[in-house]
């Protein structure tokens, strides 16, 4: 898993922050939010493919975390613990949305932003318009392929491939066994290989 400080430093300060949160210090919780907001948001965004929804779900996750921080016993890392909340909130939201859509997958969630018209003032470091367009097409293909997976399969593949989490950490976050995680990974990878092979072979 990615860490910004050494694990020992992170653990000590994190536990200290959690302890202060449990004592009711919202300033300590602000620090935890600052530490994890980008990763939490990115994880949710990769699952729901919509910035506004990802924003709202990330907000809900942090508010829920604050409300239940008194129950955090430090048996797992805070990161794994908050990921469990994030996953519950997001998977629950995806399921409800799927029910509302009549059980069908929701490809309409993929929002291709308007491609900027070619500009003469584009800095040299920026990708050219056609490169940007190509990049967006690739992203759209990935988002579409991921949207075809069940919420649970999305969660395991993103946690493993993007967050580089260990099996046991994924299992803790999703509240399932390591065997289930491995099995879900197997099927999620197979499905993505099938739907994205032509993309990643040509990139």
């Amino acid at each position, binding site marked *: 898993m990615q860490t910004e400080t050494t694990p020992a430093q992170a653990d000590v300060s994190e536990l200290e922050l959690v302890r202060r949160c449990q004592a009711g210090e919202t300033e300590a919780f602000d620090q935890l939010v600052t530490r994890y907001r980008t990763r939490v948001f990115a994880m949710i965004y990769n699952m729901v493919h919509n910035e506004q929804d990802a924003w709202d779900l990330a907000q809900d996750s942090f*508010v829920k975390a604050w409300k239940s921080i008194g129950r955090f016993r430090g048996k797992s890392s805070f990161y794994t613990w908050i990921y469990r909340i994030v996953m519950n909130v997001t998977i629950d939201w995806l399921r409800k949305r799927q029910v509302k859509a009549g059980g069908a997958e929701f490809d309409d969630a993929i929002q291709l932003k308007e491609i900027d018209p070619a500009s003469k003032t584009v800095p040299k470091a920026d990708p050219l318009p056609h490169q940007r367009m190509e990049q967006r097409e690739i992203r759209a293909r*990935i988002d579409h392929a991921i949207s075809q997976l069940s919420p649970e399969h999305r969660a395991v*593949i993103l946690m493993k491939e993007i967050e580089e989490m260990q099996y046991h950490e994924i299992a803790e976050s999703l509240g399932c066994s390591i*065997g289930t995680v*491995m099995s879900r990974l197997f099927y999620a990878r197979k499905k993505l*290989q099938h739907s994205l092979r032509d*993309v990643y072979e040509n990139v």
Partner: protein
Amino acid sequence: MKTFEEKWTAWLDGQLSDKELTEFEASLPDLAAAEAEKRDALRLGAFLKEQLAAQALSNEEFFSHQVHERIARDAQDRHRSTSTWWTIPRLVWSGATALALFVITTVVLMSQHPAGEQSEYLTQILNSRVDPAANPNATISIFESKNDNKVTVLWTEGLQTLPADYAAK
């Protein structure tokens, strides 16, 4: 006992022990094809990692501010709900107390209320005794009509007349 899917995933992620690795690779019908599949899966992983780079959170400070606001609002709501007199536990207790008072009052009033004429009359009959010397074959039975529960029938057999003290008061 690991399933094939679990072993495959562990093999792909390099999580098998030496012994498990040897056994698993020996069990594969086509190791070369499996190796190619593994390379493909690893390529997919690298591709996803590269393409799904962390989506930037626009306006991070506003995000934190909003979380802070929601927490503060929630705390205020909770404080308001606990500071009002009519909290849910209090409402429950008030309801239970009122119900208990009602039951007690009803029981007391009912115990003080005189019994109905009919029941008093029937009780009187049941408490009476038929003199076997005067009426050796006398029997008295009481039952309710099946068709109409409001009617109680007094059935006497072997009596010439109804004893005077059987009369209702």
